[in-house]
Structures are given as C-alpha cells and as structure tokens.
C-alpha cells in the first residue's frame, strides 16, 4: 500500500464486470424498430407499444437540455437500449445464473435480504433477474414486482397510474425512458397496510455502452406506509453508460412513502433521472436521496402536494470528486392549502468536483397557509472544487411562511488543527468533518446503509491529502 493520491476510479470497489451472458439485445442506437422490438419481446399490449412510440417522438423532438450539467458526451447512437441477461426471472437466488448471482453476492444483496429486508428486487442491465417478497406481505395484498410483471399481471391497476405523474413529454429523458423502459419496480400497498421493514431494489449495469431505463411505479393506498430503498452500481468502463430512470409515486389520502436512494454509479455513468411524487390529502412523501457516484447526475426529486395538509420532505446529500458533477436538488409544488415542505441539501466537492443545488418551490394561488423551508449547505474540500446554488421560487399566494438558507463553507484549517491536536491525523480529521457534515442525512438511513455510506465516504476521502 502506497500513500499516494489515488483517484476515485481506482478505489471504486464495484468496478468489476462479468462476461457477457445476455440472451437477447437490441442493436445499438434508437429507432421505432428498436422500440417495437423491445415491446414485441416483452409481448406487451398494443396500448403500451403506442405509448412507447409516442414517447419516442417526444424524445426525438425535444432538444438536449443545456441549462444544467454538460451532457454533450452522450452519444445516443452508441448505446444498447435493451439487453436481456436471462431467460427467466429467479424467485430464489439458486435460479439466478452463477456469474450474475456472484455479482450480487459481492454487492451483499442476498445477505442484506436475509438480515433486514421485506423484499428484494435485483435488476441486471435491462431486466430484473431476481425477485422476492416476504410471504406475509404478499398475503396482505402487497404487490412488489418488476414493472413488466406489474403490467402483465395487474394491467388495470397499472394502467390507471402509469405515466400519470410523469407524462412521456415531461422532458427529453423521461420521454426516452417512456419509449424504451424495462424492469424497475411496481409496488402497491393496500389500504391501511404498513410495511414496516424496507423493500429494496438494486440496479446493476454490467454491459459496456449500456443504457438502463428502469421504470418504477409506487402506489400507496389510503393510510398505508412503505419504505422503498434503491441502490445502484456499475462497472468502470472507458465508454460512458446512460441511466435514465423514471420513478412515479402516488401517495393516496393519509399514506406515507419514504423513498431512499444511495446512488453509487461508477464515474462513467450519466445519471439522468426523473422522480416525482403526488401527495394527496394528509399524505407524506419523503425523498432521501444520496448521490456519491456517476459522471454526471441530474436529479430533482419532486413532490406535488395536491391534498390539504400533505407534507413533503427532501433530504439529499451529494459528493462530487474529480470529474464529477452532481446537479441535484428538489421541487415542491404546493397546490393545496395547509401543505408543508422541507428541503435539506448537503453537498461536498473535492478535487475539481462540482456540485449544484437546483431547487424550485412553487405555491399556487389557492394554496394558502403554506409552510416551506429550504436549507442547502455546501462544503468545499479544496480550492479547485466548485459549488453553485440555483433556487427558484414562485409564490402566488401571500399567505405563506417561507424560509431559505444557503451556505458554502470550506473545511477550515482550524477544524483540522483542532482534531489533529487530539491525535487524529489530517486524513482522518477530514473524514470526520465530512461524515459530520452528512450526519443529518446519514441518521435518516437504516443502520446498515448508514455504516456502508460512511465506509464509502471514507474510501472517497482516501488519497485526498497530498
């Protein structure tokens, strides 16, 4: 072990990849034929093919967004849009082909499932290869499957909600996802059912030049509760991969949905995700959104507070190292009166890494007595790093309590010295400060994830001292 500065890529422990075992893949590039091939392969109903093709038109029509991170490196013609790794989805890990199961073993998924999860979904490239849910939850009527199964087995329920929160013409990448979507999760929690332990989906890109377009639809019926956790990793390739997911959540009256993401893509992945939730009367939505990896992330989890007394929380943490740009934030749209939202964002930049906070708070004319609060703090670890804040506010009702606070600070020489004066070396001291800075985020995670996140942060900090 040498004590030299190492870049993150070398420290990225998930950078391994397996040999290609895929059983089906579309040709590179995107066209109506590719879309039709995906739909045909999945034997979908005609309405879904029409939906996909219409979305593709939107995708072709929409210009590349230029208002955020630099996306000029994406070559849509050089991407595989659909790669099917296995013929059949496994219901037990033994059903999953060895090489793929080993990947998930290395990622600790089967172990986590045994220890503290109510259900697990594991997606490998375009398809979910493993799926399970605890029998007791299944008995209560909880549905947890990949989205394709949701469409096949519960078409009526699926169709009622699918694409209603994020229409295909919402933005270029939502349009792309709508055209070529595959995998993801379909969750339905019946009235009054509380799923007390988390459901987890794990997304793994294995192939080079891969585009992963999972689609997640979560429906929490009246008075229900569910916590859904999503983790993601990919091998480190020299070519870029694209991850453009769409996540739609509907929290019916009095329901409570918590959605936790620990995004740890390798640093060749463009992570361009549209996440949006609708909160009806007395419902609560919480986005807990952690972004460590990727080359570029653009992600603004949104909450539409449609019913009275609905509440939204967005708690996000981002870490940008060398060559990374985390352009993250949130949107809270207050449609109904007496709704509340709270946004807390923490970001750290290091070694020319760049973080941006982009937030939008909107209060519609009819939404009186709204409380909205935004707090974003950025920490810079060196002179080369960068952080920007772009807050947008449209307040159309005077009866609003609104707070906004933003800070940018540098790790102070005095903080480091203070810790050093207690015997802690400079690298450890920086790691402690970083962990402390993320503490409000980490303490919201299940313990196992908090430990893992702290470990990943420590790894990211290694070599940060010259």
């Amino acid at each position, binding site marked *: 072990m040498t004590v030299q500065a190492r870049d993150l890529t070398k420290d990225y422990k998930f950078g391994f990849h397996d040999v290609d075992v895929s059983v089906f893949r579309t040709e590179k590039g995107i066209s109506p034929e590719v879309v039709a091939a995906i739909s045909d392969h999945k034997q979908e109903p005609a309405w879904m093919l029409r939906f996909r093709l219409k979305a593709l038109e939107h995708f072709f029509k929409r210009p590349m967004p230029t208002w955020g991170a630099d996306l000029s490196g994406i070559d849509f013609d050089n991407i595989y849009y659909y790669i099917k790794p296995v013929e059949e989805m496994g219901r037990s890990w033994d059903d999953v082909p060895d090489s793929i199961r080993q990947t998930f073993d290395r990622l600790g998924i089967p172990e986590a499932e045994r220890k503290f999860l109510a259900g697990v979904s594991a997606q490998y490239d375009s398809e979910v290869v493993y799926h399970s849910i605890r029998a007791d939850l299944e008995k209560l009527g909880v549905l947890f499957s990949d989205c394709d199964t949701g469409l096949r087995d519960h078409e009526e329920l699926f169709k009622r909600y699918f694409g209603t929160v994020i229409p295909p013409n919402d933005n270029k990448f939502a349009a792309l996802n709508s055209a070529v979507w595959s995998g993801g999760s379909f969750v339905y929690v019946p009235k009054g059912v509380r799923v007390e332990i988390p459901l987890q989906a794990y997304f793994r890109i294995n192939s080079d030049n891969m585009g992963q377009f999972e689609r997640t639809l979560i429906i929490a019926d009246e008075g229900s509760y569910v916590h859904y956790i999503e983790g993601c990793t990919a091998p480190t390739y020299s070519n870029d991969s694209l991850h453009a997911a769409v996540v739609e959540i509907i929290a019916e009256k009095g329901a409570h949905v918590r959605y936790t993401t620990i995004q740890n893509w390798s640093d060749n992945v463009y992570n361009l995700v549209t996440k949006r939730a609708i909160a009806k009367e007395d419902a609560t939505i919480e986005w807990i959104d952690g972004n460590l990896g990727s080359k570029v992330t653009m992600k603004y989890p949104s909450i539409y507070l449609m019913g009275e007394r609905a509440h939204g929380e967005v708690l996000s943490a981002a870490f940008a190292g060398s060559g990374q740009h985390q352009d993250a934030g949130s949107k809270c749209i207050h449609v109904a009166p007496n709704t509340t939202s709270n946004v807390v964002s923490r970001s750290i930049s290091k070694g020319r890494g760049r973080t941006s906070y982009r937030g939008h708070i909107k209060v519609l004319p009819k939404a009186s007595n709204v409380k909205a609060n935004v707090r974003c703090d950025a920490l810079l670890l060196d002179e080369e790093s960068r952080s920007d804040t772009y807050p947008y506010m449209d307040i159309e009702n005077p009866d609003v309590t609104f707070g906004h606070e933003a800070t940018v600070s540098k790790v102070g020489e005095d*903080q480091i*010295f203070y*810790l050093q004066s*207690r*015997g802690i070396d*400079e690298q*450890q001291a920086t790691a402690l400060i970083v962990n402390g800075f993320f503490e409000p985020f980490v303490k919201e995670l299940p313990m196992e994830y908090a430990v893992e996140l702290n470990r990943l942060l420590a790894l990211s900090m290694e070599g940060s001292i010259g």
Partner: protein
Amino acid sequence: MSETPQPTAIAEAPRVSGTGGTTVLDVAGLRVSVEGKSILEGVDLQVPVGQVHVLMGPNGSGKSTLAYSLMGHPKYKVTAGSAHFDGQDLLALTPDRRAQLGIFLSFQNPIAIPGVTTVNFLRAALRAQGRELPAREFIARLGDEMSELRMDPSFRSRYINDGFSGGEKKRAEILQMAMLEPRLAILDEPDSGLDVDALRIVADGVTRVMEKSEGRMGVLLITHYYRILENLAPDRVHIMHQGRIVDSGGPELAHVIEREGYDPYTTATSPAGPEG
C-alpha cells in the same frame, strides 16, 4: 472562598512524589512569526512533570502564540530555537504526532465540528492515540468524568462544541483532557468567561487529572486571572511580555501581578521584574 472580598490564599501545590524534576517540556530561544509578523522573540521555558506552571502577561504578549506553536498550528512559523518534549524534538512533528506523544492543548476558543458527537469525537481521538478502550469501559469512564465536571449526560450525543455556551466549551476541553490523560497539558485561558462556580469546577478538574497522573503530567496554564490560582496550585509563575518570558517566580509572583498589574514590566524597556 468566593465570598472573601480579597482573595489572598493561593492553594498549596499538591506534593506528589514521582519523577518530579524531569523536564517534560523544554523550550529554548523559540522565535515564531505569524503571517510574516514576528510574535515570539526567543522564549525559554522548562516545565517539569508533576508541576503546574503559569504563564501570565498582558494581551498580545504572545502567550497563545506559544501554545499554538507548541501544538504545531500551521499558521505559526518557527523561525529559530527549539522545543523538546521528553527530550524529543517537537518542531518536526505534525500536530497529531505531538498529541500522540502526550501533548494536549485546551483551546481558548474551541472549534465546533458539526455532526460529530462528543462521544464519537473522543473515541476517534483515543483510537488515534492507540489507547482505545472497550466500549463498556469507555462509556463508564466518560460518565464518571462528566459527572465530576457536572456535565449533563446529554452532552455525549451533542455535536462537539456546536452550539455550546462558553462555559460548556471550557468544560468539554477539560473533559477531553481527562479522557486523553496527556503528559503535558497546555491550557490556554481555561478560565476566561467563567463564573465563580464554573471556574471552580474547571480548576478542580485540572487538579484531579493531575493527581490521577501520579506526577507524570505537567501543566502549562495560561491565564489572566488570579482567581483560578486560588483553586489550582501553581509551582512556578512566568510573565510574558513582547514575546519573551521576562520574569519567573514562585506562586507569590501571581499575587504581585494581581496587586500591581503588568505596569512594572510594560513600562520598563528591559526585562526586569519587580522583585528580581
């Protein structure tokens, strides 16, 4: 005690036998500048183990600069002279190495580390010094020390120095000293801003840690106030002025300063004490 209008009695030094007389800190001809400005102009100072040495002097005389320099703050550049701890050259070492040798600095203005709880901070420090305790023992000891310092148990899970009052910060520094058991404690105005009761708790804390060390610890106490010396027994008092130690004496010297101030030093052009 506190109701006595004129403090007169300086507490007696604990007569602890042991390795008394061995110099734990040896500073010779130390010159230090900060951002190009020379502050210390050749400091000579020895602190033996088992003793409390007090450093007094007017504002700006260089007391805190000496403390920071001995701990190794990067802003304080040593331009000449030497500093040895137990015979070992300090000046080549990073602050964390110095702490690992057994030097502790109680900060005049302790720094907040948001998100790092007091308990995790102390564990990290003990681990870094290779003296990690089993969890149960650690928690028990921490509890004992906190109750000695009249600190509420909730302190453990508060972020270190974050939102602490002035008095809480001072106590938290003494708590750290008690847990880390240094061989040399440099206390930079541990008494500033404290009321009489808090000051007594802090002074008792220092005394207790010293007694517990059984003569293996030396203290360099920087203070403006005579009052803390009523509760803490100094062996020697040094007066600093314009970056030099201009006078040294027994505990009675602090008494003289209390009565007459620093005028005898500040008005004289050459270092000369009132009583030689």
